[in-house]
């Protein structure tokens, strides 16, 4: 692969094409972005990642011409947009920055309505769209539309920022470290929500981060940039992890690549184990029978909507006495994940809860099955095996070529 050219292998339609894009800031001896060419396929999350000062943010801002390129061309849907009116261009591209930049003096609804208003939408259509978007990002419109940004938490502001960027339904969104200023727990949740959202909306997203773990988790493809926005490698996360193009990439991914690989597999990709369960309100004797009949040491108590409540074992039953409701004895059912959680998240949940199992629930929080630590272990092992096989094949191919 050429140093400064990125073409996405096996990609569908090309949404954005950058051709020999360069930017030199006035008074600087070197280009901040040097002769960058890149093809960005439609409907994918493309991550620009690299060390600080590599020009990744500048590169992103060249696309909507917040920073005007010194030379080179930008194509959106095969249309050369290098010289079109930048204000009109930007209304077609969603834009989310780390500081979010909500307008503090207008309501959440007006913040979200910014672009539709500029596009001259009718009032009814705007109102409808605002409510729809608030629902999409998981905020109750009745409760939030008339509030002001300062009344929201950091995570909620971020959601409104995303809703605002999507307001006129742009095909393309630019996101500059959108989850960077948020505490790790909320960030994790927002990342997962965003991935779930992207499954429905299928936007073309250019996503800038300096965090390789975020890149691996969020990206369909990752462009690892070195200084002056030279592309070190542009490929899927899997292939970058398994087959780093050079030492720079390998260094950047860092150690612990096996752990990172856990970010590539999701709970829905592994086989769930079943566990004996009991409805809250079941008699203690029946629970004891259940325990005897299974090889597990505890049963999972579910409420009437099948949502996990408690772990209860024989000892708990004995200690609690016959009258106690199942939902009030035993240990809390922590470490709960949904099918789209990565195995890395799942492992994290287990370690936090100090359980060796994680409970898998569907989107309405109903019990689906169990992932245990052995499953995760097996996954890591089989990934390593697959990788070794691949490397051996590569070597064999190389030998054949050289002989």
């Amino acid at each position, binding site marked *: 692969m050429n140093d400064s050219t990125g073409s996405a292998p096996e990609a569908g339609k090309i949404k954005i094409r950058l051709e020999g894009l360069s930017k030199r800031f006035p008074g600087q001896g070197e280009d901040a972005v040097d002769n960058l060419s890149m093809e960005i396929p439609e409907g994918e999350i493309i991550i620009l990642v690299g060390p600080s000062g590599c020009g990744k943010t500048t590169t992103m801002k060249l696309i909507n011409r917040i920073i005007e390129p010194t030379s080179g061309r930008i194509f959106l849907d095969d249309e050369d947009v290098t010289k079109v009116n930048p204000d009109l261009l930007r209304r077609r591209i969603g*834009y989310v920055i780390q500081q979010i*930049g909500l307008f503090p003096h207008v309501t959440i609804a007006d913040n979200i309505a910014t672009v539709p208003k500029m596009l001259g939408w009718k009032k009814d259509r705007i109102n409808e769209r605002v409510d729809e978007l608030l629902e999409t990002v998981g905020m109750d419109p009745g*409760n939030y539309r008339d509030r002001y940004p*300062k*009344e929201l938490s950091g995570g909620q502001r971020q959601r409104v920022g995303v809703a605002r*960027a999507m307001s006129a339904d742009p095909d393309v969104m630019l996101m500059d470290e959108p989850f960077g200023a948020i505490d790790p727990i909320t960030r994790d949740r927002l990342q997962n929500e965003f991935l779930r959202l992207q499954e429905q909306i299928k936007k073309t997203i250019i996503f800038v981060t300096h965090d390789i773990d975020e890149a691996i988790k969020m990206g369909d493809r990752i462009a690892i940039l070195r200084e002056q926005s030279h592309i070190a490698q542009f490929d899927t996360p899997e292939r970058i992890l398994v087959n780093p193009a050079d030492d720079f990439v390998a260094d950047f991914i860092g150690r612990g690549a096996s752990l990172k690989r856990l970010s590539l597999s999701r709970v829905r990709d592994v086989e769930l184990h079943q566990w004996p369960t009991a409805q809250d309100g079941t008699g203690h004797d029946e629970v004891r029978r259940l325990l005897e009949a299974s090889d597990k040491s505890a049963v999972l108590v579910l409420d009437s909507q099948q949502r996990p409540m408690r772990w209860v074992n024989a000892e708990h039953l004995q200690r609690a006495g016959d009258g106690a409701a199942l939902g009030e004895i035993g240990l809390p059912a922590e470490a709960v994940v949904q099918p789209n959680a990565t195995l890395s998240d799942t492992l994290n949940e287990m370690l936090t809860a100090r359980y060796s199992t994680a409970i898998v629930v569907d989107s309405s929080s109903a019990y689906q099955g169990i992932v245990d630590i052995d499953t995760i272990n097996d996954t890591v092992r089989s990934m390593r095996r697959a990788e070794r096989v691949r490397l051996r094949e590569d070597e064999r191919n190389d030998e054949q070529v050289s002989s």
Partner: protein
Amino acid sequence: MTTATDSDETGTNQVAHGAATAQPRGRHRSLWGYLFMPLLLTSILILLYFYVQGRELSSGEANRLNADAILTATREQIELTVVSTALVLAIAIPMGILLTRPFARSITPPAIAVFNIGQAIPSIGLIVLLAVVWDIGFRPMVVALVAYTVLPVLRNTMVGLRQVDASVIEAARGMGMTKRAVLTRIELPLAVPIIMAGLRTALTINVGTATLGALVGAGTLGTLIVAGIVQNKQLILVVGAILVAVLALLVDYLAAIAEERLRPRGL
């Protein structure tokens, strides 16, 4: 907490509810907060009225202390204040906008220096100087007041525009707002509280300094004070001084209410 969405959602809601119950500062006064100053000023005026009524007035005093003369003087003072402050706004706000645009960065310091001259000269000196070299009466007085109070409004306009969070402007530009829309819909509204504070300063200075108009034939309540001094009539002097003080406090009170009312919600 990958998927404990339900519990987290309520958690964040609580945070928001908590924040919503906190009253935004300075937006609403209590009824007493609104009534205190007008009641105080009215009582002072009533007391003053009965005090003057209870006195045997000499013909010199009666000439000055009658409703006609006082109302004319008050009107002159208010006119000077309003006209000069309006001109200050018309000059200082556009100038402040201009001087904060990126292209004007190099001319900002010299421009500020020019406006600084007006404020550096003592107001009485400037007024007398204009009377000597130009004219006496209303117009030179307005010019002197404007020269004296442009700087605080200009400076506050610039500070107000510059303190707008850069990320807010970047987000606005990034969504395709034109530069003009960013100025009128984002920057200016967010600068209003600080511009209003400058305006209040200018009003207060102007209503007080307008009193000096008595020295250059522009009338005003200052004529009572000057007459009181010249004719050695304590009563006229005291009435003039109290009326000026009451007017200044009233103007400041109205400006304070305007300041609170015009502050955009959400700040």
